[in-house]
């Protein structure tokens, strides 16, 4: 063959240029058509595409489909949001087609989709009128404080409490901590035994949302926005106070570094190596599944407080259902979402099979969520959780790029646990990266 490399490359380059031209021709012209604000039933038989990753939700959908022959729901069980579904939403939004009518989104991701203008305002579709049916603090998270607007229907919440081993606390002679100071003290006492047991664990895996909740409890406010743009204060004083406390426990070697929700964690729980867990309402089920041998030994207390006698809690996790912009049936999708998350039978299914702690105000009166709980030594743990839900600051605002914020924080925490940097350094880095990411999304940021 006598062909110079350049000549051989020429057809390749030609193909590349052609493909680019073809793509350029495809792009552009995706002006979202503004639909009217009225949201009316279509009056005919409709099918709603619905994406969720809640285990067992198919049973609730079946129940709905039986009772509502004219609004049939076509469920796709999708992977967990962070395991791919968020990316699929993003891709579909970019492509301008392929989003479901109704899709599951966690609270902290809603602003992200709101800012992509991907969410339908379902306030006029009946969601605004349903406000009273949901736990108070969920509402600002799905309305973003906008007048008459609702962008999602809350499904479940995660009020934070302290899960602890009543038997081990007694054995170690530890009082249930009422303040964080007492908590740190107890962590020190347990570690001092030197038998490998710890009061609790701290690891960078799944750390972001958990830490945000602890900052939330202390009155931190990581994000805020007004007509000028966003304010980002991940390194504010309340957050630093939380960081300093955990820094102190890290420095003293008081914490186990077992990552939460792993097999290793389950085993540490089962082998009495962890005495407590600062967790959310949905977490009790996870302990039960992960360490069934500890049945009867667990109890629940309110979160330790920053001020003796205070009662603040915070929310970790929980999800919502949002109608995506461009849905042909926003009214029907909203009606289904409201039924799914408030109808006693549906809420019971989601709680029993999916472990969801309902966001519906009435949901907390489910038989499964009242009275003695066998796994928790017949203690009425949901009474404590219910009270916690009533003590959550309504002013918390999630930012539009939580994926970056959480992954930065988690990356930086690896260095903190290694002793390579301080917790405050990690907060500074997270603040910096978050601001950069907002700016990369062309959002205006005003740093305090």
């Amino acid at each position, binding site marked *: 063959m006598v062909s110079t490399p350049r000549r051989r490359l020429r057809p390749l380059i030609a193909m*590349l240029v052609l493909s680019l031209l073809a793509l350029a021709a495809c792009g552009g012209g995706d002006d979202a058509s503004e639909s009217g604000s009225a949201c009316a039933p279509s009056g005919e038989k409709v099918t709603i595409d619905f994406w969720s990753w809640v285990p067992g939700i198919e049973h609730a959908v079946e129940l709905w489909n039986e009772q509502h022959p004219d609004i049939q729901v076509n469920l796709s069980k999708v992977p967990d949001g962070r395991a791919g579904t968020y990316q699929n939403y*993003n891709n579909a939004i970019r492509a301008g087609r392929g989003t479901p009518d109704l899709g599951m989104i966690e609270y902290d991701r809603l602003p992200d989709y709101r800012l*992509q203008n991907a969410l339908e305002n379902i306030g006029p579709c009946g969601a605004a009128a349903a406000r009273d049916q949901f736990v108070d603090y969920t509402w600002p998270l799905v309305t973003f404080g906008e007048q008459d607007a609702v962008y999602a229907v809350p499904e479940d919440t995660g009020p934070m409490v302290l899960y602890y081993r009543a038997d081990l606390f007694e054995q170690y002679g530890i009082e249930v901590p009422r303040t964080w100071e007492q908590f740190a003290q107890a962590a020190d006492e347990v570690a001092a035994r030197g038998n490998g047991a710890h009061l609790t664990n701290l690891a960078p*895996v799944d750390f972001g949302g958990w830490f945000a909740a602890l900052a939330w409890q202390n009155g931190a406010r990581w994000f805020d926005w007004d007509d000028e743009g966003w304010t980002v204060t991940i390194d504010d004083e309340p957050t630093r106070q939380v960081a300093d406390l955990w820094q102190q426990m890290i420095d003293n070697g008081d914490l186990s570094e077992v990552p939460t929700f792993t097999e*290793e964690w389950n085993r540490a729980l089962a082998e009495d190596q962890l005495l407590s867990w600062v967790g959310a309402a949905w977490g009790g089920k996870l302990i039960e599944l992960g360490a069934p041998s500890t049945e009867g030994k667990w109890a629940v207390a309110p979160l330790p407080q920053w001020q003796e006698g205070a009662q603040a809690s915070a929310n970790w996790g929980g999800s919502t259902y949002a109608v995506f912009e461009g849905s042909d049936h926003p009214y029907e999708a909203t009606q289904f979402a409201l039924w799914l998350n408030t109808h006693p039978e549906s809420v019971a299914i989601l709680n029993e099979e999916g472990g969801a702690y309902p966001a519906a105000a009435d949901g907390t009166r489910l038989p499964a969520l009242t009275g003695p709980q066998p796994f928790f030594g017949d203690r009425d743990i949901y009474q404590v959780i219910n009270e916690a839900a009533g003590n959550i600051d309504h002013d918390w605002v999630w930012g539009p*790029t939580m994926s970056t914020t959480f992954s930065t924080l988690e990356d930086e925490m690896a260095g903190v646990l290694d002793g390579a940097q301080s917790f405050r350094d990690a907060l500074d880095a997270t603040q910096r990266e978050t601001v950069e990411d907002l700016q*990369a999304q062309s*959002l205006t940021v005003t740093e305090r």
Partner: protein
Amino acid sequence: MTGHASPAALRGGRRRSRTAIAGFLAPFALLFLATYLVPAGYALYKSFFVVERDGPFGTPHDVFGGLSNYTKALGDSEFLRGIGRMLLFGVVQYPLMVALALVLALLLDTRSARLQRLMRLIYFAPYAVPSVVAALMWGFLYSPGLSPFTEGPGGLGIDVDFLGTHAILWSIANVVTWTYCGFNMIVLVTALQTIDRDLYRAARVDGASDWQIVRHIKLPLLRPALVLITVFSIIGILQLFTEPQVLSTLTGSITSDYTPSLAAFNEAGANNYSYAAAISMILAVVTAVLSTVFMRIAWRNR
């Protein structure tokens, strides 16, 4: 057709054969275009864009941003550290893996080897395990509290944390070696089997020892196969993804930008498509340059 073909007939034949070549190439070329060049071209195109909005909360849309994604990536110390990490990984893991594969292949190729087929299958088996499964399995073997390995040395007072910040890169290297060593061995065994046995007989007649046969016949003739697996490895190592992605659910030591591919994946997941595209392009260029440089050197020294 007999006799001399006229020039016109020759031209016609050439034209026909050109059509035939095009016909045979078309299925490949179309798929290559649709599944490789177009996406790659689109990623390249996207990598020059940045997001802009009308007003603080307007609809986001992409505008041309020149090289800004590239300057951002090249100024991102964590991304550069990820590339450096992969180079370090390659410099250590690749020679070990190939040396092991080479030893196994040469052993299987000796006259005295027993149960060759069975042993070949056993060495090759890990490659048949999907890499996600392999990573999960090793993840459990590494997890302190679950691992049979951490308990043993722990009892002797040696504290090993396979998933800790310092060990994790080499724990990943171990998984990769476990998975791919057998594959590389098979490539080498196949190459060894194509060597004409007469060469060995001739060498023996000349009084060559087994070692001399390895040194002067087998190794030189394995050269093309070694070049091939080296290029595969350069590409594979720089694009390391599955193992760290799976292990990252078990440990905080693997950050979201631990490897360049992870960085691209996570940026795309965070809706920063253009930046992810720029990262992918840089990774592709680094991979192409390294592979080309290596092949140049390998062929020049032939």
